[in-house]
């Protein structure tokens, strides 16, 4: 156990030190993207691992990004306040959608369909209110007027963003671990198998599911807001809608649904894939990554349901027993 903590410590120290010794902007940019998306995927997996498959997380991410940017541009609300507001908004949205689902036992495929609709609705709202949101053309938060980027949470420096993203990513892993070790995990595993039996053990099924959904939605909104602040450009395609939701499902399943670093591995793979396609094929390859995601998703669900990292760790665990 101690060697495990040591490994985490060394790894983390190396990640913190990285931007001070290696400053190649493109690679740092890719790393920031990986960290932000890893956080978003981790958020998804917090509920996804218990069979609560949501295709609505694109919606939460969109709310996080757009609410923060709109508050800044229209009402001069600093992202330091805007981000919490956007998270609350996503949380309220999550409760409004999830409470009836859980209360009336909408589970499995039906739950997936309801959340799919949520993604679609958020996307429609963004495109329909194009006078404010820029519609499908995208939206840019105004540059900080005062010159100080801190208040506006805008930094030109990649190192700063890298450290922010790293911090948030670590917090995401800690939340994952906290859930993993809590009684809530027992309750959620029980609920995912048999809701009546869980209730007979004294579990308030609706409340437990809402709690986990709320945590997941808040984190996802934060990921959306950070993405917006970092990229300084958002569009429905990149932070909202069904494609983003599907990308989350894909990344987490490929990386590993039941291990803490699984979503991170998923983020590395999806972002590398997108970048390779973009650099290798340019505009000819627009949308190809989605095609590859789709095919890989089917293959993974059939042959490697625990994902890459989950399967590797399983093999490492079982090997010493055999010898």
């Amino acid at each position, binding site marked *: 156990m101690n060697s495990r903590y040591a490994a985490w410590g060394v790894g983390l120290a190396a990640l913190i030190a990285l931007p001070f010794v290696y400053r190649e902007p493109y690679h740092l940019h890719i790393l920031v993207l990986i960290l932000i998306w890893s956080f978003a995927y981790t958020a998804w997996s917090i509920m996804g691992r218990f069979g609560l498959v949501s295709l609505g997380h694109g919606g939460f991410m969109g709310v996080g990004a757009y609410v923060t940017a709109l508050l800044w541009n229209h009402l001069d609300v600093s992202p330091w306040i805007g981000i919490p507001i956007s998270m609350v908004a996503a949380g309220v949205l999550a409760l409004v959608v999830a409470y009836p689902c859980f209360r009336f036992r909408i589970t499995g495929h039906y739950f997936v369909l309801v959340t799919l609709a949520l993604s679609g609705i958020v996307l429609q709202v963004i495109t329909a209110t194009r006078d404010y949101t820029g519609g499908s053309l995208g939206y840019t938060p105004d540059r900080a007027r005062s010159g100080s980027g801190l208040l506006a949470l805008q930094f030109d420096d990649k190192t700063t963003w890298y450290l922010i993203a790293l911090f948030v990513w670590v917090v995401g892993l800690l939340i994952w671990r906290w859930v993993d070790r809590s*009684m809530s995990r*027992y*309750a959620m*595993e*029980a609920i*995912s*198998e*048999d809701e*009546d*039996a*869980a*209730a*007979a*053990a*004294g*579990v*308030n*099924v609706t409340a437990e599911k809402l709690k986990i959904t709320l945590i997941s939605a808040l984190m996802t909104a934060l990921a959306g807001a950070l993405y917006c602040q970092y990229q300084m450009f958002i569009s429905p395609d990149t932070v909202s809608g069904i494609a983003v939701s599907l990308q989350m499902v894909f990344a987490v399943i490929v990386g590993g649904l039941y291990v803490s670093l699984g979503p991170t591995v998923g983020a590395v793979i999806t972002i590398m894939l997108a970048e390779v396609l973009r650099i290798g094929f340019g505009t000819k390859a627009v949308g190809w990554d989605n095609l590859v995601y789709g095919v890989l998703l089917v293959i993974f669900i059939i042959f490697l349901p625990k994902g890459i990292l989950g399967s590797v760790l399983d093999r490492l665990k079982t090997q010493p027993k055999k010898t």
Partner: protein
Amino acid sequence: MLAVEGLVKRFGGFTAVNNVSFRVEQGEILGLIGPNGSGKSTIFNMLSGTLVPTAGSILFDGAEIAGVAPHRIINRGIGRTFQIPRPFHRLSIFENVALAGYYGQGRHSRAKADEAAERALRMVGLPTDRHASVDGLGAAGLKKLELAKALATGPKLLLADESLGGLDEHEMDQAADMLRKIRDELGITIIWVEHIMGVLMRVVDRVMVLDHGEKISEGLPSAVAGDPRVIEVYLGTDADSSQIAAAEARRKAGV
């Protein structure tokens, strides 16, 4: 301790439980028997909150619990087992029981949950090892786990649903003794639903017989076993005369 008055449950046009009233006194074991479809499980599901009664009242320790959510009823002190064991396969045996110990006792603390789990597992005779898998358990082991889960919630009243189905005779006797031990040592009041009359009659203090959703007999096991309506329900009307004749013959022969 438990007072049920005029309990009714209808599913559409079908009346599963019709105007059933009964009381359970502190510390007794009440047997609830009846043929398949007589409404035993429906009554259980209403007592444990899984089903909401169409009419009637259920007073537990003086408070109305009809229609209260299952997890709240558990926390008020009514534990239940299921007819068919429903373990959580993704959790170990210990975790299954610790879960019930945590959420069934008002989520006090993990230490208290673990303690309750250990006590319950020891009571029913299952290993208290933290990682033992549920998948290694046989029919008897799963029934024990079901019982341990219910016990870990710290019940004052235990609803044991047909806990002997699928066991051999030796295991049945063991399980029956277990229920009696739970009452004697932990002071838990028990309502025990069962098909198998023989073992049940040996352990319970009182029996209630249901047929087609109605209470047809109630009383001491010996009295109920001799009730013609009960014999009719269990042996059928056509078999009646010959069965009763055979019984008479045996009695005359001095058995």
